[in-house]
């Protein structure tokens, strides 16, 4: 009842404030105590993104930030390649190869990349859907590296479930095949 009146007048009781703050702080504490879970989550995230674009796995940064009244996960994932028609790059899911692409050396300095269209079963069970930010266009030119920053609201309970990498296989690096020219 008191909470109702307070909200009516735009105030929040200190107890309610405390509860909210504690919730966020404990989420943050739990996350920092679960590095293995975070690693697994990162792997799953990157696996999903790799279905669409090629990424530089060595330069990925994923961290958590307090943002106003929520905890947010921020991922910075450098993209190293995108197929011209937007189809997937080669990846290995459960050992199978769903797509492949050819790189032809042309007169241009950068190799072109073409990918055969492929099915894209999303196997990794990432708990946050990652949507690239609408106002950051993906680079059309292959070979250029761009970063995509995506902010995903991590709405979690105080004790997050363990996330396991469902798809244990990692995408194979795209192999450039030089056709004799």
């Amino acid at each position, binding site marked *: 009842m008191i909470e109702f009146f307070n909200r009516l007048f735009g105030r929040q009781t200190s107890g309610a404030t405390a509860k909210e703050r504690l919730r966020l702080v404990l989420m943050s504490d739990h996350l*920092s105590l679960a590095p293995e879970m975070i690693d697994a989550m990162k792997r799953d995230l990157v696996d999903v993104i790799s279905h669409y674009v090629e990424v530089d796995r060595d330069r990925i940064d994923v961290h958590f930030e307090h943002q106003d009244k929520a905890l947010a996960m921020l991922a910075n994932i450098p993209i190293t390649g995108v197929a011209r028609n937007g189809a997937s790059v080669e990846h290995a899911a459960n050992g199978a190869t769903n797509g492949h692409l050819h790189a032809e050396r042309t007169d241009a300095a950068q190799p072109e990349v073409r990918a055969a269209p492929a099915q894209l079963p999303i196997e990794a069970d990432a708990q946050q859907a990652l949507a690239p930010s609408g106002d950051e266009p993906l680079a059309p030119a292959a070979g250029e590296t761009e970063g995509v920053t995506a902010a995903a609201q991590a709405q979690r309970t105080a004790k997050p479930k363990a996330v396991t990498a469902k798809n244990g296989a990692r995408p194979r690096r795209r192999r450039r095949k030089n056709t004799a020219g």
Partner: protein
Amino acid sequence: MQVLQTQDEQPLSGSSAALGRAIVITSGKGGVGKTTTTANLGTALARRGARVALIDADVGLRNLDIVLGLESRVKHHVLDVLEDRVPLDEALVRDKNSSTLYLLAAAQTREKDEVDTDKMIALVQTLRERFDYVLIDCPAGIERGFKNAVAGAHEAIVVCTPEVSAVRDVDRVIGLLGNRFEPKLVINRVRPHLVRKGKMLSVQDVNAILRLSLLGVIADEPEVIVSTNKGEPLALRNDSPTASAYHAIAARLAGEDVPAPMVEYKESFMERLGSFFGGRR
């Protein structure tokens, strides 16, 4: 550990050559108000214009950040600095309310025995070069965490409540602090109505045993809980007796002669005190 770069350094208030004061706030007994005192005293000193750095030395059980309402701004902690992963400047979090108050948070997921004592001493020294006051919030107990917190300090404030266990623990801590310190005493959570009824030790009772220079007395106030709920130290306000008490403490610490608050106490049960220490006084 990284030496502080000087490019963006702000001059110390007052004399640029004087080193700041490094004060550890300790007690032995937990829950008597060390963290609350560190936060409020830091705030009070900052309001007087001093540059103040607060260090949370409670590795694994950080709380100074949450008492100050800064928990969402902490990105790095003491061990990140001691282990050279980030420069000190990046780890220092500026207070929301006081522009000359900074926090260096504890590591939440590490253990106290991972702190290198020598590096801790060096860190405090570096902070003394930049700040007028470096207040170190000591963890409860007398184990490694306590030792590390004390190591870098040159002065000590002991916080005690008027309860037998707290007094006994402080007595022990005073012994452990040794000759390096002349600890000053803050008596917290006094309930004058209980003292009047003889159900609580009085200030005089407590200090008759501890015999320290009295820095301040703070009455128990439910508002403290509210202030922690909100993450807004009471010393920011002008309407709270607790705030006044901390401001008086800050003034005394700075060398001002502030008279002790007048509180009515009953003549109390001195004779019972003897038993708390096995008969010796």
